[in-house]
């Protein structure tokens, strides 16, 4: 799952940096690249038998160490929140996944007060988590739930074009931040698309 997301992100490094250049300091691509490298390395070191909890914790910690900037703590918190959400006895069904993503969102929210509409990764993450929960409540399986999450995230990221940034470096630009997709929202959408694709079997 993480591997598939990593390869999608790697393919998009330049695009992400370009988006970050428009409103920030242009390093989001390399931050995401470092994150994915770190996460995969953590995965490999944890080995096959490690629990989702442990693997995600290690991956989150590794991302925080490696990414720097805003991406490190935010993406790291997401992964560590997922780890906590799965807990020691993960229910590997849609409801359990929804709960884990809710825990992940709560963990990210400890780091930032950004809400959807503020032109950040939250514009992709929040609708995605809502979508998983709704799908799970409607009785969908994990692949379907993640597919709906990915679609919601993509829509959320697209919508950031017209937003004015209220968090992160882009905030300094005020109105000039309007007009391009937020880099962090885009990478979040790519991540979720990667998760969905990995579990959707393609």
């Amino acid at each position, binding site marked *: 799952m993480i591997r598939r997301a990593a390869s999608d992100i790697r393919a998009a490094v330049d695009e992400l940096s370009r988006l970050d250049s428009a409103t920030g300091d242009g390093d989001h691509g390399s931050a995401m690249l470092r994150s994915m490298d770190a996460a995969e390395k953590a995965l490999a070191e944890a080995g096959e038998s490690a629990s989702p909890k442990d693997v995600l914790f290690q991956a989150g910690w590794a991302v925080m160490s490696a990414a*720097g900037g805003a991406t490190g*703590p935010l993406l790291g918190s997401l992964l560590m929140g997922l780890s906590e959400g799965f807990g020691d006895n993960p229910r590997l069904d849609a409801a359990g996944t929804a709960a884990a993503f809710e825990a992940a969102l709560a963990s990210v929210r400890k*780091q*930032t007060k950004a809400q959807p509409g503020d032109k950040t990764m939250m514009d992709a993450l929040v609708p995605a988590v809502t979508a998983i929960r709704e799908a799970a409540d409607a009785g969908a399986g994990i692949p379907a739930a993640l597919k709906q999450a990915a679609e919601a995230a993509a829509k959320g990221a697209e919508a950031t074009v017209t937003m004015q940034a209220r968090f992160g470096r882009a905030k300094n630009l005020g109105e000039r931040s309007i007009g391009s997709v937020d880099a962090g929202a885009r990478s979040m959408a790519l991540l979720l698309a990667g998760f969905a694709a990995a579990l959707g079997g393609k």
Partner: protein
Amino acid sequence: MAMKKFINDPANLTSELLEGYVQAYGDKVALAGDRTVVRAKCKDESKVAIVTLGGAGHEPALSGFVGEGMLDASVVGDIFAAPGPPPVFEALKLMDRPAGVLFVVLNHAGDLMSANMAMDMASKQGLNVRQVLTHEDIAPGADSPAEDRRGLVGCVPLYKIAGAAAEAGKDLDEVCRVAEKFNAQMATLAVAIKTATHPQSGEEIFALADDEMEVGMGQHGEAGTGRSQMMTADQTARVMVEQLAKAVKAGKGDKVLLIINGAGATTLMEQFIIFRAARKVLAEAGIEVARSLVGEYLTVQEMAGFQMFVAKMDDELLSLWDAPCDTPYLTVR
């Protein structure tokens, strides 16, 4: 103009500068891990440790103030970028002790996220750490919410105050108390007149017209509160002092600590001229400049401009200020 700096591979800036720094002051500081500067000779474990974090590129801040009477550890990020939570947590763990750790954080989004994450980890592991957040920038208005106000050069005198209390053997409650007292009584305002280049991207961090200045400019080129025509030193000092004195509620008979902190390319000559002018305005209001610093403490590469800092001082704060310290860039005998 193209970037013109004495550097090598921009990717190695922070590691090379830290290597040079600890070599230059090997009698006072050392590296713990890649990016954490600690004292060459550790403080007694019975005393509270003071830890901070922040991006590089502001030299001598923050690591220039690691040493006797001030910081115990400074966790360094990349240029203008916070370190990640793991090294911060590692530093807190390294400094953990029964007496406890005071963790000083400057209010910048990245710093705060790393700090919060590290604090979470620390509390999960039962470390005895207390956090103080500096946010003394009054550019957005002295009454605006703390979260909108950045931490500027005020961290440096706060390290001094808290460090002196810790060195004197005060317990964590006491060290926290004086740090928070000082924190509540300080204010900074920055002004910029010439931009700097980011030493990694080579790009200018902001743009100003030849005859413009900007009051309230942040220390990474964040927009300030207002551009104006360039003013004289006396005029600039007056505008700034009046806002600062009001912010810290200093009036007739009060004593203040006044710091003029050069941003990089503004000469000490100018800083002295500004300092003289600031004292004059304060004197008119009956405010005594009881202590002062003039020089480069927290810089923004080769930006021209300065930060003016004012804190209201009482006898307790003055005696902590006067206590000896011995760090590479601030020494009191």
